[in-house]
């Protein structure tokens, strides 16, 4: 079962161009995400506690947006908050800035043994390239 979900709540379709965790680029079969839809990916090469860095790049309306978060700048939260074996995480692309230069990203996570996700009360931003 996939343990990473990426949601598109930005209003129009987008493409997930790249998702890199701890230096490993995850294979993406179909990178198109319609509005209100999500796609699922899997990453368990390392335990969630050994997380070091995360890069996401999406394309929306022919503009690329990118975020690069190392462990120190990653979303806040409790146990299971990093992607990896023993965790499940959700990246929620939640809208554009008024000048279209940023896409906001919300986050939720938990143990894969539990149904509910815990929220992070952090927000991160993908910047137009």
């Amino acid at each position, binding site marked *: 079962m996939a343990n990473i*979900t990426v*949601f598109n*709540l*930005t*209003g*129009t379709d987008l493409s997930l161009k790249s998702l890199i965790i701890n230096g490993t680029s995850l294979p993406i079969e179909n990178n198109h995400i319609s509005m*209100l839809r*999500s796609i699922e990916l899997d990453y368990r090469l390392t335990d969630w506690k050994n997380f070091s860095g995360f890069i996401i790049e999406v394309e929306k309306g022919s503009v690329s947006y990118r975020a690069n978060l190392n462990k120190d700048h990653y979303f806040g939260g*409790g146990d299971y908050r990093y992607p990896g074996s023993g965790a499940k995480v*959700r990246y*929620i692309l*939640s*809208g*554009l*800035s*008024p000048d*279209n230069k940023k*896409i*906001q990203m*919300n986050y*939720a*996570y*938990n143990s894969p043994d*539990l*149904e*509910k*996700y*815990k*929220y*992070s*009360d952090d*927000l991160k931003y993908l910047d137009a390239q």
Partner: protein
Amino acid sequence: MGSLSFTNVSGSSIGIAYLKINDTILIEKEKPSEYPEVKNKIFSISDKNSAIISYDEKNWNDFSRIWLSIEVDGNTYSVDLNRDHYFYGGDYRYPGEGSAILYFFSGFSEDNSMVQMSQGYAKAGDNNMFYSNDFKYLNKTVAT
């Protein structure tokens, strides 16, 4: 046309038990809604799904207050936001005629006493949604 979308990314199925905007009750679990567009089927939103309803009783900029209660696993979580405590943002950030609002339920607190809610918004008919950069929380209410 004003529209409201409720999107569930919390992992658990969510039932909308009560929704009142300004003077209009749009969803009320205990009795059939007087609002014609509300159907029973939207009361439950499974994980990763959305329910969309319309609300045109007032213009977005005449917004004064929203009340929302949801049910998860037999527990009820509620929030009551007046205009002063509503989500931040620019024009069209309030529900009503002329705006499109997307509320999403983004997870639970460690002790399951709260559900986080976030918002995106747009001018009705526009494609791109803008983000609000603040969170609101539904608090678990004591069972009656």
